[in-house]
């Protein structure tokens, strides 16, 4: 008996027990659909996080002030104002850090902006013109800060879209004046919405002023020289780690620190952010995938159960086939084909439902589902493998039946 005949016989058997075959397939189908959807959800979440992190700026490096050891006592992260404008200026040198494309020191403070009788407290950022490029921010109307603004410590401000909305409503604020710490600032531009928020901070609720203005006219005190963060962009994603090294070496040098373990600053890359975010997502995906995998296993046991019932019910048929000259091997193959066809059909239907689900689901829950071709093909392969694996036992039982015992059964 050739393969075509065997497959045909298997299909006949499946077709002649439609309800039972359908229910068996359902088990596999649900398992496969669940696997595809959970993997899709996990990958969708990862893609979303990746997009969000990329929206903070491409090839971004963030230097934050770190712990400082003074008198044998190590302060915690951010406990010291160890980064200065001078550090940022040094990193801007092509000699020192050839792989750093742009540098934007940033000092940040809460401030209350006032327009007429309305006021709004927001995060005021003092920074230099490259900030927009480094943080991947675009201008909605007006313009961003210029080198001139920086050099002259101009009394200008660029508002985040939320801030603008709060102070001016739908009105275009460009050209208007807001007051911050009794200093009147002219609004020169409005940022485009960044479409994401990092942690608790809303990137759209901000007011950006030139660094010099912030240091000299608005904040005073420490803010005159120290910065809260230095944002840098590497020249490309390939030079990110080189840029990291250059920045680290230069800062260690400037701060007279010999052991990098004692660094009084922390450099965060997009990659490290991504890794953290992805590891959380991966845990979730593995957890959900595990549950889906268990449902696949249950489906597989369902296949075995049905195949065993099928063997018992068809003892006569098996006996007859053996009497007509079917070798044990041929009988085994017939049942294996039946089981794997059940698995395959369940797998394909499950993949279809998974695909439909990944299209429909994002409309109900607020997270994207990325359909992974690898997971889909893998799931179908797994479904066949499950059919085969759980078909082996019933199939070999069928093959071992003595033709005489089988024929005698009434």
């Amino acid at each position, binding site marked *: *008996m*050739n393969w075509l*005949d065997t497959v045909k016989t298997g299909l*006949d*058997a499946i*077709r*002649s027990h439609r309800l039972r075959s359908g229910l068996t397939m359902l088990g596999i189908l649900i398992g496969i659909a669940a696997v595809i959807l959970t993997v899709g959800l996990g990958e969708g979440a990862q893609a979303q996080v990746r997009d969000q992190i990329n929206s903070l700026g491409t090839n971004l490096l963030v230097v934050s002030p770190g712990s400082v050891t003074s008198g044998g006592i190590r302060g915690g992260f951010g406990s010291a104002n160890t980064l200065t404008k001078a550090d940022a200026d040094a990193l801007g040198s092509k000699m020192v850090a050839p792989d750093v494309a742009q540098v934007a020191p940033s000092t940040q403070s809460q401030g209350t902006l006032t327009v007429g009788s309305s006021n709004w407290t927001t995060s005021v950022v003092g920074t230099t013109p490259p900030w927009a490029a480094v943080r991947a921010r675009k201008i909605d109307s007006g313009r961003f800060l210029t080198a001139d603004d920086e050099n002259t410590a101009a009394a200008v401000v660029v508002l985040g879209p939320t801030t603008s909305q709060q102070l001016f409503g739908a009105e275009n604020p460009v050209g208007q004046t807001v007051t911050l710490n009794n200093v009147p600032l002219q609004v020169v531009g409005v940022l485009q919405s960044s479409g994401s928020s990092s942690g608790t901070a809303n990137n759209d609720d901000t007011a950006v002023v030139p660094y010099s203005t912030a240091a000299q006219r608005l904040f005073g005190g420490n803010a005159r020289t120290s910065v809260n963060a230095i944002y840098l962009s590497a020249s490309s994603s390939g030079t990110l780690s080189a840029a990291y090294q250059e920045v680290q070496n230069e800062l260690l040098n400037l701060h007279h620190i010999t052991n990098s373990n004692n660094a009084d600053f922390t450099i965060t890359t997009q990659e490290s952010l991504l890794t953290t975010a992805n590891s959380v997502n991966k845990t979730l995906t593995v957890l959900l995938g595990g549950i889906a995998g268990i449902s696949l296993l249950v489906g597989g046991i369902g296949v075995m159960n049905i195949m065993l019932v099928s063997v018992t019910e068809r003892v*006569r*048929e098996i006996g*007859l*086939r*053996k*009497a*007509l*000259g*079917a*070798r*044990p*091997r*041929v009988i085994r193959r017939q049942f294996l084909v039946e089981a794997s066809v059940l698995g395959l059909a369940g797998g394909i239907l499950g993949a279809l439902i998974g695909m439909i689900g990944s299209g429909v689901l994002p409309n109900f829950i607020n997270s994207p589902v990325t359909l992974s071709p690898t997971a889909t093909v893998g799931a179908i392969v797994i479904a066949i493998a499950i059919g085969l694996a759980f078909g082996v036992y019933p199939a070999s039982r069928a093959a071992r039946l*003595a*033709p*005489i015992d089988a*024929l005698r059964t009434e």
Partner: protein
Amino acid sequence: MDLLGPYGSDHSSRQEVIRLERVSKVYRTGAFEVAALRDVDLTIHDGEFVAIAGPSGSGKSTLMHILGCLDVPTAGRYYLAGEDVSTMTEDDLAAVRNRRIGFVFQQFNLLPSLTALRNVELPLAYSGAPRHERHERAVRALGRVGLADRLEHRPGELSGGQQQRVAVARALVTEPALILADEPTGNLDSVSTRDVLGLLQDLHDSGRTVVLITHEHDVASAAGRVVNMLDGRVHQDADTVEVWTR
């Protein structure tokens, strides 16, 4: 010991299809041992039409299973068409059943989901015959049993007699050395019984070896030779049924 039986001398020039030498079969059920066959010697030649008769419990069914290679003897030797099948592996037995034996059962044993044609093709499928040849031979075999117009009918759409004729077609489609019919008329009315016996007679007339297992005298009388079983032994071996009914 006359291995060839009482008619051996008449057929000595002809080929032996079946030779049993001191074949015994013992079934064990728990602590009990039941000897279904005790030292049976039997020789059947090519072209014979033999009925194996006897009351239930006489061992005729066990004999049929051994003759059909569905079961192996506990002791003794069984040569089918010259081959010693008593020590064969299961794969080889499957091949022997496929090539050398055509079965006709009391229960017809057709697969209900297949058409008459595909039921008849089944043994050819297991022997690996190419598709077109299978089809041709199955059509010819069905024509031979008078069912040329019922090729695409399923067993459920055929009468009992027609179903048994499909079974006969399936038995002869591989051109086997031996056609083994186990109570082929047990489930049939008298008209269909005559029909099927006539068919077996035709096969015999065309030179085939037919072994018929039955407990009915008038069915056994269709055969040219009757082997009467009793208590696991050959009780009588005669050329007509009258010998043992008297």
